[in-house]
């Protein structure tokens, strides 16, 4: 007999907060809005802690159903049920824990913003959908959460709606994610058609019952799921929305675009690992996408000058690591990195927010510098995060990154052995690049001469100042976690117990391919060596950053001038946005105009109309004369359609 964990309550708590603040918040005083938002997100965190405390006594997997059936269609039904297992528990802890800290931080950060209530309402809405996503026991409910977090993210990115760029960024994020959702939905339909159910347990059970089931449909489904995951987790080719998403308020970037929502793709791949284990091809694709994204985004991060954009590309790059880990079936390493990344990346964003706050809204790295003494708490916590992301022992990032790189090095699931080594090499180089751009950011922000405009920073009335305690407390907590958060996965090779991976064994241990690494004394030595190597690379990156941005601040500019082509390529992010615009967006709009039988319509869609002018106007002027709201020409279309239908029908009746 399993105990009732009241899982239904978990998402409903933030939903209640959303409904309260969303409907009444406008008229309520700020303190009440704040306390409601904090109360409900805190209560969710408390419930997760309560669940965690009782977790040992649960029979796994623990499923709680609330509406059976939720939807019943001939031959298949979906229940409204939630699943609790170690993977879910870890995600719940991250989502509600980090979520609560960021709620707390936002109280101070957003204090002077218009639409305070709206912000907290959206934030709670996000938590509701994210918890639904994590708790879902079937693909449909997972998708519900998946779309929902996308919606919340859209609302929050466009929060500063007076800025056109913010509204555009929100729309871009939504549209790009729709492409991923297309893959996800198609995968869902294929699953329905093939298995007649969407429940995780039934589908994975069905696959487990047929050991011969390999590749084929499973590969198709897995690849479509990957398409979905690349959208949500900002991987190649759909990563383009994440850097733009930085238009949103900084706490949002920390919570949604670093710690939780963007990891949904990794969570999904890990959750459905049974499918991927049966499809080496899909795994290979995941690994390659991950490695490529990791290094690609890292190179762009090197030259960005907006502090949040550097962090955004860093997020894309780190998500690439997690993808890479999934691709070599090292799911527990991926989740481990997901957790440590949630700590240090959320911290990086919050600290960056604190810097921006201190400087009165300045985000350009070139206009910072010398802030070490002025905002010491921010400095020290951010330092912890930088050390963590660069993978220095004993910070959190060291353990998780080491686990991933070791798993990639020893990958047995990839088709060729060399591919594993190549991907490992890419991962190693990326680690060096990461270290370089993070220390670049660190030096440019906190060291050197003060390049910011005192007048501008004075705007708030109190100059460059440290933030309030509600903002600093989350920084400190996350700072501590960035240091010790990795210790739970202390590898056996270094005298630990690797307890994080063992905790996840019930989830991932079931599959044969999920145990790529068999521990032996030889491989322990190898692991120690690899760990040392990646530390060395990271140190190298630090050293380079030290030379370029600390000792010799003039040098980078000269280098940029010398390799101007390369610099421009990186600065413009490889012109990917422009490429997509030219090959996808413009043709679509052109077709739309043809459908409308109208010429250029400048002004409606950002200038691309002008580009079309030359091509479309000649064509449409001919069309315009015959097609101008005239009844007779409409009748002509009807008659033509009718003729086509009749010919078609005639043909079918004759030939069959």
């Amino acid at each position, binding site marked *: 007999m399993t105990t009732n964990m009241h899982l239904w309550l978990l998402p409903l708590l933030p939903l209640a907060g959303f409904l309260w603040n969303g409907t009444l918040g406008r008229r309520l005083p700020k303190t009440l809005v704040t306390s409601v938002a904090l109360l409900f997100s805190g209560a969710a965190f408390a419930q997760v802690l309560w669940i965690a405390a009782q977790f040992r006594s649960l029979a796994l997997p623990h499923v709680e159903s609330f509406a059976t*059936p939720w939807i019943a*269609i001939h031959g298949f039904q979906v229940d409204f049920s939630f699943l609790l297992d170690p993977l879910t528990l870890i995600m719940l802890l991250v989502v509600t824990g980090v979520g609560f800290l960021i709620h707390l931080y936002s109280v101070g950060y957003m204090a002077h913003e218009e639409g305070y209530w709206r912000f907290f309402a959206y934030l709670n809405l996000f938590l509701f959908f994210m918890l639904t996503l994590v708790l879902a026991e079937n693909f449909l409910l997972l998708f519900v959460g998946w779309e*929902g977090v996308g919606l919340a993210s859209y609302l929050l990115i*466009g929060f500063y709606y007076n800025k056109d760029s913010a509204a555009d960024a929100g729309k871009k994020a939504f549209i790009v994610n729709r492409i991923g959702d297309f893959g996800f939905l198609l995968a869902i339909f294929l699953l329905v*058609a*093939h298995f*007649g159910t969407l429940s995780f347990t039934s589908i994975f059970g069905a696959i487990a019952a047929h050991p011969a089931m390999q590749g084929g449909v499973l590969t198709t489904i897995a690849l479509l799921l990957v398409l979905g995951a690349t959208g949500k987790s900002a991987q190649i080719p759909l990563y383009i929305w994440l850097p733009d998403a930085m238009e949103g308020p900084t706490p949002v970037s920390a919570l949604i675009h670093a710690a939780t929502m963007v990891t949904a793709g990794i969570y999904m791949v890990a959750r459905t690992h049974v499918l991927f284990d049966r499809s080496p091809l899909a795994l290979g694709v995941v690994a390659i996408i991950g490695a490529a994204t990791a290094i690609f985004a890292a190179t762009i991060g090197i030259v960005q000058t907006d502090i949040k954009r550097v962090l955004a590309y860093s997020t894309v790059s780190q998500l690439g690591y997690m993808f890479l880990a999934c691709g070599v079936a090292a799911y527990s390493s991926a989740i481990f990195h997901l957790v440590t990344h949630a700590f240090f990346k959320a911290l990086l964003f919050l600290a960056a927010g604190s810097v921006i706050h201190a400087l009165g809204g300045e985000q350009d790295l070139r206009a910072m510098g010398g802030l070490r003494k002025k905002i010491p708490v921010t400095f020290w916590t951010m330092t912890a995060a930088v050390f963590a992301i660069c993978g220095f022992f004993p910070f959190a990032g060291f353990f998780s990154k080491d686990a991933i790189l070791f798993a990639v090095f020893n990958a047995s699931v990839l088709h060729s052995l060399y591919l594993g080594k190549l991907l490992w090499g890419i991962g190693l180089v990326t680690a060096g690049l990461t270290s370089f751009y993070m220390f670049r950011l660190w030096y440019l922000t906190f060291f050197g001469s003060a390049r910011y405009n005192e007048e501008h920073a004075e705007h708030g009335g109190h100059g460059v100042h440290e933030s309030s305690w509600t903002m600093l407390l989350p920084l400190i907590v996350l700072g501590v976690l960035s240091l010790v958060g990795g210790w739970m996965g202390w590898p056996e090779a270094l005298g630990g117990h690797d307890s994080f991976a063992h905790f996840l064994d019930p989830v991932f241990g079931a599959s044969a391919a999920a145990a790529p690494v068999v521990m032996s004394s030889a491989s322990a030595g190898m692991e120690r060596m690899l760990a040392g190597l990646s530390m060395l690379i990271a140190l190298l990156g630090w050293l380079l950053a030290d030379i370029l941005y600390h000792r010799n601040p003039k040098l980078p500019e000269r280098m940029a001038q010398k390799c101007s082509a390369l610099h421009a390529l990186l600065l413009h992010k490889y012109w990917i946005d422009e490429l997509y615009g030219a090959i996808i967006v413009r043709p679509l709009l052109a077709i739309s105009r043809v459908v409308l039988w109208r010429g250029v319509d400048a002004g409606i*869609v950002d200038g691309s109309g002008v580009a079309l002018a030359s091509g479309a106007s000649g064509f449409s002027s001919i069309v315009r004369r015959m097609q101008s709201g005239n009844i007779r020409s409409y009748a002509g279309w009807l008659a*033509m359609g009718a003729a086509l239908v009749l010919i078609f029908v005639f043909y079918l009746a004759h030939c*069959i």
Partner: protein
Amino acid sequence: MTAVSPALRILPEILLTLTGVLVMVTEPLLSAKTSRKPLGIFALLGTLAAIAASAWQLHLPAGTAFFNTIQTDAFSVFFHLLIGGILLVTLLVSLNYFEGHSTYVGEFYALLLFSAVGMMLMTSAIELLMVFLGLEISSISTYILAGYRKRSAVSAEASIKYFLLGSFATAFFLYGVALCFGATGSTNIHSIATGVASGSSPLLLALALGMMLIGLGFKVSAAPFHVWTPDVYEGAPAPVVGFMSTAPKAAAFAVLLRITYTGFGTMSHIWIPLLWIMAVASMTIGNLGALTQRNVKRMLAYSSIAHAGYLLVAFTAFSADGLAAACFYTAAYAAMNVGAFAIISYLSGYDERRVHLQDYAGLAKRHPLASAAMAIFLLSLIGIPFTAGFFGKFYVFTTAMHSGLWILVTIGLLNSGLAAFYYLRFLSQLYMQPYDAAQDISEAPAQPAFVLGIAILVAAVLVLGIIPNRVLRLAQAGAATYFPCSGTNAAEVHTQPNLLR
């Protein structure tokens, strides 16, 4: 077979007709200055009675009446309830629309009622003569309704366009009926089914089917017979558009279901490819057309073409579930579309003050509740989970997948991804643009009836999205009582889960 009095089988229609006639007769007795609201309220009561009568019909044994021309079963009741519901909310939201702008508004209510009577007849008719009569009763009423803003040139133009092209299409439908009669010697759907199954004169039957599909394709505004839609929707009064973009479509789809599934079930090799092409064309043309459209009503018109395409996807599945999916989607679509047009009618008023997208910039500031409702309808049109639109699409595409139509599903999903773009543009106009106080237009405060209507629609969108099972079961009951037809064999072939067909 049954002891049920024939009159009881058309009880909803009788009630609506009586109400309509009474409203029509009372109208000239009132002085020109008196408010016509009591008439509207009376029409509302009649509609409620008709809805209750339809629900009661569910307990009747399924059967026919009036010399095999009418058949009441779960299927017809589903559509009766749907059309009655649309009529109810349309009456609610238009109760104040004409206030102070037009005289003889009683006629408006009466025409709405008569139009609904025609549509209800269409859904329960199993005789093509009755289908034709229902079609014409509803069409003639909607021709007038489209031109109801009498002093507006645009409205008159919408009316004449709808009228001429509608009659044109009806002639095609009729010719199809004549050919059908010629091939089988009957205009009763069940006799036609027997005739079709016997396999005589297939060419004549194929042409008859094609002709009828042309006529019905026009009514549901499926491509390539969609050309009239944007113009008519733009010119007609907004509450009327909400009504005529949903209820006649529901009725025409019901007829299409009866004709294709029951009548021509054994000729599915002809109409499945045809509907397949029409579905693809409608989805693509609708969504691409809406993409660069600036006029809100035209944008929604193109979107309704696209939604007709999604519905046709369900048809093409040709299975009991496909039928249930089509029914469910019709209901979901009706809720969100009537809602969207109702909000537009409220915000832009009788004289259509807000026509273009930019006129809606930042309205969330000034009309938070109306904008919130609009946001829900738009999100549902996009297909966001926990709204009716999501489950409608999910259900439709699931059944299509069950029938192995994966190419169609892929195209449909791509289209619904594309569609997000223009709905989102509307949404971001409402919420993410600064409000221009200079363009301030003072609206009359929303009346209780309007608020009630919107509340019903919002509730419908959410209920269909969160707990769809109840309506689903009704739709499935409708499908089940009537699906096992001459086309059963074909259906079984098609419902095999075959992935790579």
